[in-house]
């Protein structure tokens, strides 16, 4: 049910091709599509501006209900519309190239009548540059084409009525009987002539795309509880990886609000260093060795440009992330501003050094040696960590009223030096500064134990000297700081559980962060709590919580960044990589805890 033209965030499903992705609403409308790439301006942005954003609607021209699923083991969406007159099935996919001459990007919409005779309608409203520019509406060889400077979109259709341009939108109606088939395609071009596909070509690519995803899923390694959720998460993550570079976006959307009507609206279409660490871990566990290797080398290439200082996030091509600015869209259900670019790019976040070294260690430990140049670069970065860890930073949550001495950041600096020592001792990087790294790692540990522990709260604290707790500290057992079953780690998990948990969900903190407005519970924190419980010997509690969290996915198994604890509605960018990564880690951790019979 739409509210002032906006579908709830949980009503969307994601389709993609490794270059870009589209969000399809339960009512059949493509409300988000950026072209030609994930981080390009949008052509469809009705999710951020129902009136002016642009959309590609396809649904019965009569009251209907829907049921949806991904075709098993694929990123191909199947929506079944039921109407009083009959039912119809729509299969949506971003097709993958099969070697023949195909459009630069192609969204295929295959329609099949299941029963009765169903009146259908479709309407494509292209709005380039985030809805700011209307296209030239033209025809090429009988096909409607929307063009604007260097980009163009064609809508070839077969048995789907007689399309006509009206008010800068192309639309048509048709009826489909049981057994009847129709097809629509959205064929796009950027900086090159359009390729106008034939029906058989589109149908062939759709079949090949289904086969590709089925094969990819067959190769994934996971058996155990929550297998469907883990495999769906793997499929989502594959869509978020930008195939040309191997980098991964944090989410394919911008400015889906963390609070309906609020100001916490951010652009997540960039690659965060910390996500890359989690992603490489997950990819290796799932048997996606090639994807992990690709991301690791992207990681080294991108960070080399700014080394020894690291940026928090990078563009998908490895360049420095763009500055943040506001654009004139209405915002999801009036949640303004809509931002593109991300202001976190200018922040100092010291935890990213721990993420980089954890990634290097992981990769070295599981797969291959680091080369001499990489080892040399890591030496410089480790020395940089020794220089900066005493300084305050913006922390993992990217607060805008800092900098502060975040406990999580200090611990991740310890992780950086701990892994540097281990890598040097394995001769993966030069050891000439080994003594300094050990000395500074000890100093960090002393600082954390002395300044970041509160006897009052009985927990490590969010900031040195404060009494606030921070869900980011649920990562302590994961990163290997201290004794996972020791009293301080267990007490910290208990304190977070008591102070930040609401039902099954966990807030990240309750302190002011300089942004204003409210936010929901962060789902990654909830899954981190599962992992923390499992790693600290509370496997049964972790498993029960995991069961309930997995059940909070939407009807096609996807998660947004946050959940409103009062209503259960999704909030924030969607689907979010970090949540699906945390889900995978929690599933593997629970499975391992169960297999080793860890006691309560």
């Amino acid at each position, binding site marked *: 049910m739409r509210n002032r033209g906006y579908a709830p965030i949980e009503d969307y499903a994601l389709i993609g091709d490794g270059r870009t992705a589209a969000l399809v609403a339960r009512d059949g409308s493509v409300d988000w599509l950026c072209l030609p790439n994930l981080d390009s301006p949008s052509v469809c942005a009705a999710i951020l501006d129902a009136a002016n954003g642009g959309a590609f609607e396809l649904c019965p021209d009569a009251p209907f209900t829907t049921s949806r699923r991904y075709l098993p083991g694929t990123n191909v969406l199947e929506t079944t519309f039921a109407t009083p007159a009959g039912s119809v099935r729509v299969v949506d996919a971003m097709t993958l190239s099969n070697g023949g*001459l*195909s459009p630069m990007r192609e969204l295929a919409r295959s329609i099949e009548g299941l029963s009765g005779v169903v009146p259908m309608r479709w309407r494509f409203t292209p709005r380039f540059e985030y809805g700011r520019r209307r296209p030239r509406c033209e025809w090429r060889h009988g096909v409607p084409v929307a063009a604007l400077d260097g980009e163009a979109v064609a809508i070839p259709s077969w048995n789907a009525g007689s399309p006509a341009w009206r008010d800068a939108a192309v639309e048509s109606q048709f009826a489909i009987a049981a057994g009847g088939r129709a097809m629509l395609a959205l064929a796009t071009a950027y900086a090159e002539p*359009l390729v*106008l*596909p034939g029906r058989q070509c589109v149908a062939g690519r759709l079949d090949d795309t289904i086969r590709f995803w089925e094969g990819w899923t067959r190769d994934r390694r996971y058996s155990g509880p929550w297998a469907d959720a883990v495999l769906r998460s793997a499929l989502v993550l594959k869509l978020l990886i930008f195939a040309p570079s191997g980098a991964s976006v944090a989410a394919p959307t911008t400015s889906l609000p963390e609070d309906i009507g609020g100001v916490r609206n951010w652009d997540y279409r960039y690659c965060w260093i910390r996500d890359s660490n989690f992603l490489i871990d997950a990819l290796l566990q799932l048997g996606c060795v090639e994807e992990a290797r690709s991301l690791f080398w992207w990681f080294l290439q991108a960070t080399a440009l700014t080394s020894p200082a690291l940026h928090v996030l990078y563009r998908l091509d490895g360049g420095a992330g763009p500055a943040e600015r506001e654009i004139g869209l209405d915002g999801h259900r009036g949640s303004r501003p809509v931002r593109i670019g991300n202001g976190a790019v200018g922040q100092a976040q010291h935890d990213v050094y721990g993420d980089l070294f954890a990634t290097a260690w992981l990769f070295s430990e599981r797969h291959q040696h680091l080369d001499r140049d990489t080892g040399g670069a890591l030496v410089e970065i480790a020395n940089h960590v020794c220089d900066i860890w005493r300084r305050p930073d913006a922390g993992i949550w990217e607060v805008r009223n800092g900098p502060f001495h975040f406990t999580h950041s200090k611990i991740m600096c310890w992780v950086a030096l701990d892994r540097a020592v281990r890598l040097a001792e394995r001769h993966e990087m030069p050891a000439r500064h080994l003594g300094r790294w050990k000395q500074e790692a000890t100093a960090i540990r002393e600082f954390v134990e002395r300044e970041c522990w509160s006897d009052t709260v009985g927990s490590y604290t969010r900031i040195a000297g404060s009494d606030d707790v921070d869900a980011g500290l649920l990562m302590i057992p994961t990163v290997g700081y201290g004794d996972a079953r020791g009293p301080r780690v267990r007490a910290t998990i208990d304190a977070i559980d008591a102070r930040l948990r609401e039902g099954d969900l966990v807030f990240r903190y309750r302190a002011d962060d300089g942004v204003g407005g409210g936010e929901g519970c962060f789902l990654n924190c909830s899954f981190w709590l599962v992992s923390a419980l499992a790693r600290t010997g509370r496997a049964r509690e972790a498993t029960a919580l995991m069961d309930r969290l997995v059940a909070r996915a939407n009807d096609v198994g996807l998660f947004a960044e946050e959940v409103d604890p009062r209503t259960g509605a999704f909030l924030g960018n969607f689907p979010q990589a970090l949540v699906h990564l945390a889900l995978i880690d929690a599933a593997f951790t629970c499975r391992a805890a169960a297999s080793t019979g860890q006691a309560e």
Partner: protein
Amino acid sequence: MNLAGSVLVAGAIATTVLTTVVRAGSELGLTRMDLAFLLGTAFTENRTRAKAIGYVCHFAIGLLIAFGYAAVFVVVGRSTWWLGAIGGAIHALFVSTVLVNILLPAVHPRMGTPETTANQVALIEAPGFLMLNYGSHTFLLNLVAHIAYGAIVGALVTV
């Protein structure tokens, strides 16, 4: 340097400049014209191979056309940058109205013409009059690129 040598050098430099100007226009979002893609897809459906073949073809054609310019310069008995620039402007008009708009669709196996419809095989969008199907700035960009080409050939060829 003899005439043939100067034509080869001038043609190579001028074609490089022309290609760079057009590609820069594409990257800046001013046009969807991609000469290498257009030429290469006449030989193969594989995008990567098509662009490689297209660049080679375009470079060879650029060298050949420089000999055409040289022939004109020999006939008029002089060679200057502005004479070459005028030739470039005429060249751009011919390319935009006849060569790419009419002749290329007629011989290109994967390009649509006014007689074809998109029902069975993939078709590359035809350029249209003045190649405006590829963006409203396309003709202007093409004109600038060809004037630069002609001026370079005119300046470097020694008659």
